[in-house]
């Protein structure tokens, strides 16, 4: 049984069909890259998988829970790093992580230990007492990464994991994500960064116009005769005639 299972998922906002019949499965131990151009339906899919949005049709299962009918149970079991970061908050990172810990029913000692460990790993020890709203975007992203992993969930949903991070921290986060997935967890990463996906993911799915148009396993690199992931991406997305995506000819010229 997959950690994440999606069958015939559909979601519209008025006349706009954001997700138009999505099907895929993610197993434990996978670091799954969800690639697609702007407006392809990636964020809506994540929001549906985490019970933030009610689907119009289809079946979704995350760790044997149904996010549509039991969203709190789903969110209790998973970690979420949202696309838009965090709202301006006047808590310090230490207080914010205490808040997340209390909401997730974690012991104070465990939260304190995790806070110190993550602050050292991502380099925000000196910012633990600074108001969150006064942190740089990169520092805020580090705190948000911490809250997504603080309860060591079996499945994590991440929208653009490396946004605003400096190159050193990017490397640390990439290595951490690879090892975390290898520890029998599933990591679902939505990103525009094809190089990063190619570097860290075990498998990728390419989305265009609300549908999964192709998947590729990256465990053993590309097979002979297969093009790069970028070529595959442009080829499949172009085939779907996505309006907002430049064509190969445009890029060539």
């Amino acid at each position, binding site marked *: 049984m997959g950690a994440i299972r999606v069958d015939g998922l559909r979601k519209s906002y008025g006349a706009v069909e954001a997700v138009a019949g999505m099907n895929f499965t993610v197993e434990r131990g996978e670091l799954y890259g969800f690639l697609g151009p702007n407006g392809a339906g990636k964020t809506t899919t994540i929001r549906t998988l985490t019970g933030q949005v009610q689907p119009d049709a289809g079946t979704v299962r995350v760790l044997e829970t149904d996010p549509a009918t039991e969203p709190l149970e789903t969110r209790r079991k998973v970690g*979420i790093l949202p696309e*838009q970061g965090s709202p*301006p908050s006047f808590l310090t990172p230490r207080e914010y992580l*205490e808040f997340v810990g209390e909401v*997730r029913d974690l012991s*104070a000692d465990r939260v304190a230990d995790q806070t110190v460990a993550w602050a050292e790993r991502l380099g925000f020890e000196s910012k633990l007492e*600074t108001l969150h*709203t*006064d942190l740089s975007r990169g520092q805020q992203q580090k705190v948000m990464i911490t809250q997504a992993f603080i309860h060591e969930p079996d499945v994590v949903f991440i929208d653009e994991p490396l946004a605003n991070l400096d190159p050193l921290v990017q490397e640390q986060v990439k290595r951490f994500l690879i090892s975390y997935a290898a520890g029998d967890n599933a990591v679902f990463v939505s990103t525009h960064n094809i190089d990063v996906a190619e570097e860290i993911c075990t498998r990728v799915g390419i989305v265009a116009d609300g549908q999964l148009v192709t998947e590729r396993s990256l465990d053993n690199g590309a097979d002979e005769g297969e093009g790069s992931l970028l070529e595959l991406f442009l080829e499949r997305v172009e085939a779907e005639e996505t309006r907002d995506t430049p064509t190969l000819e445009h890029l060539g010229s």
Partner: protein
Amino acid sequence: MTGSTTSDRPDSGGGLSTRRLLAVLFREEWRMHTQLFGGWRFALFPVVIAVLAVGATVALLETGTAQGTIVGGLHALAVAFGLYSGTAGFAGSDMLENVFGRLSLLLSSSTTLPLSRRWLLGVFLLKDALFYGVAFVLPMALSSAALTGFSAATPVAVGLFWLSLCLVFAVGMATTVGLIAIRTRGVPPWTIGLAVGLSVVGIWATGSLGAVQSVLVPVRGSAIAAGGLAVSTIVVAMVSLVAYNPTYGRPSRTATDRFARLSGALPFENAPLVTKSLLDLARSSGGVWKPFVSASILLALVAALVGVVDSITGIVPAPGIFFGGVLGLSAFTTYNWLTQFDSLEAYLAYPVSIADVFRAKRIAFVLVGAPTVAVPYLAAVIWFNATLLDAVVGAILLAGYALYYYGLTVYIAGFDPNEFLFDAVRFATFTVGVAVALVPTLVAGFVVVPPSVELAAALGVGGVVMGVIGIVLSSRAGPRWDAKYRTE
């Protein structure tokens, strides 16, 4: 500032003329409002303002209120609206960029284009003054027709009244922008607050209140006085813009860990959510005093109005009933402060339901709102010598109506109470909801002084009923907004 770059010079707009920028900003303003609320709902808003202003004027005249009181009240409203609109000046610095920056692409474009931030802000504020002057102040001015009656001179009277209201609206805006400019020069907020407080006390203590009132109602004064006020306002606005430091960045603030202790001390199921709300309120600009200041301003305005009515008609309302009913309105501003820096969507990353979030906000509202209204209410009943019965009934009305207004606000506006101010349908619904409770109470407060035991009992029961309705409304807000967020 030790030096200014090309883009910081006041006249630096690159190849873009001020007129062209104004036009583009107007278009963006219109689209922002129509996008947020739907075109016709926003377009109807001036009509709602006009209906309310004219309706209230007619009703006040019918109940014997003097014309001077109504004119003064409308000018006070225009000043208050101007003070509020001037807060857009914050958008030029990084203080509230998270609030305004997301809404105005043009305003934040000084970071990416060779445009002066100060010039951009100046034109933005000018746009605001013109936009709100036409969309909101002009409908208010139509009440002049109800004051003077219809005749051939009505258009001229309305026009003059509009100019008068526009002038004091601009005074309000310039005052706020001036204070913000001082803030960007590194003057601590408490110093500014102290100076403002001392100025107000000074005006009151020296008996200059009447003089200030007459200056701030230009339509009743001389043309020279009005011209002087206009020139002064322009000077203050220009000096503020020059003094405004576009590169101001507030230093990072730190805080000791208070979350765990406070959350542990609160005996509620949703203690972490309540604690977050309280700390966000306490640490944002103005701190926990913001709701108290809002309630005190309401108290001062209403008390001044009571004084004016007394001096003209000799009628003084039952203070407990009157102030209990009116001060409950501070529920709106208190809730507004509690949601100012919060976003409902952000909570969807945690295993908490939207209903839990609303429950936590209600607890935070009671914890903050109770002392916020209790102190001004006690001051009012002592100052105006309320009888014991009147004071007790007023306290019940205050608690019940505050819960009712809170429930009404949460049910109609969810987490964005500020936004519904410009949505004709929501605003009209809120206004009717407030009037249903407040108008009969005010009438009773003016007619039966001091209140009879029967009237007091009836009003007390009414207060309890409205409080229960408020609790029901706020309880239903969770499921209602949960459905909206998850399905739309």
